[in-house]
């Protein structure tokens, strides 16, 4: 059965700290791995990763994928209170030659204290 496991499930840090969120997966017919930030309702897109070892960066956030060891990490440096949210990791499978569905982990709830 396909599964995505995130750790830790919750994390409390202080402003300025650096955090690393983990995502491991067992998914047949892997197509991509995606990270989303969910503050209230709509998950908002952060990164899509398809190739191993290529770091993607956006401001203070970065992510990398290891397709051999089947995991990804999301790093946030110099955290701010606005980073407080649930971070979701999802893996997209293949459906023939088309997009497959997303398999989500339970999420990591990050709380950043002032």
């Amino acid at each position, binding site marked *: 059965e396909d599964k995505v496991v995130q750790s830790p499930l919750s994390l409390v840090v202080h402003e300025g700290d650096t955090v690393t969120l983990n995502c491991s997966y067992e998914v047949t017919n892997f197509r991509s791995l995606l990270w989303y930030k969910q503050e209230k309702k709509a998950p908002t897109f952060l990164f899509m990763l398809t190739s191993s070892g290529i770091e993607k960066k956006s401001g203070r956030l970065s992510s990398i994928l290891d397709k051999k060891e089947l995991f990804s990490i999301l790093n946030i440096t110099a955290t701010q209170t606005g980073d407080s949210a649930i971070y979701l990791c999802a893996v997209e499978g293949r459906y023939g030659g088309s997009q497959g569905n*997303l398999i989500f982990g339970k999420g990591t709830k990050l709380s950043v204290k002032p």
Partner: protein
Amino acid sequence: DAGVTQSPTHLIKTRGQQVTLRCSPKSGHDTVSWYQQALGQGPQFIFQYYEEEERQRGNFPDRFSGHQFPNYSSELNVNALLLGDSALYLCASSFRLGYTFGSGTRLTVV
């Protein structure tokens, strides 16, 4: 450019009733997927619609059904509501690569 629009935002229903949720995809997107997110859990895949047909389905009972219209908008119908159906229902649209999510419909079954 409008993103994914879902309606209604909140809904309260009684056990046994039926409910219809609506989704308008992002402009240019032709595929619509529905997810159920229970409190404290990640979203769970319900089904995906493409070219007005259900293309993939997750592990949900037949009480959950859907439809996609020629303009790519979609509906999710849930019959014989159970307390356990209380959740945030998310719609995601896509075109070949990536998914854009709507803000969801919060369904409470009492």
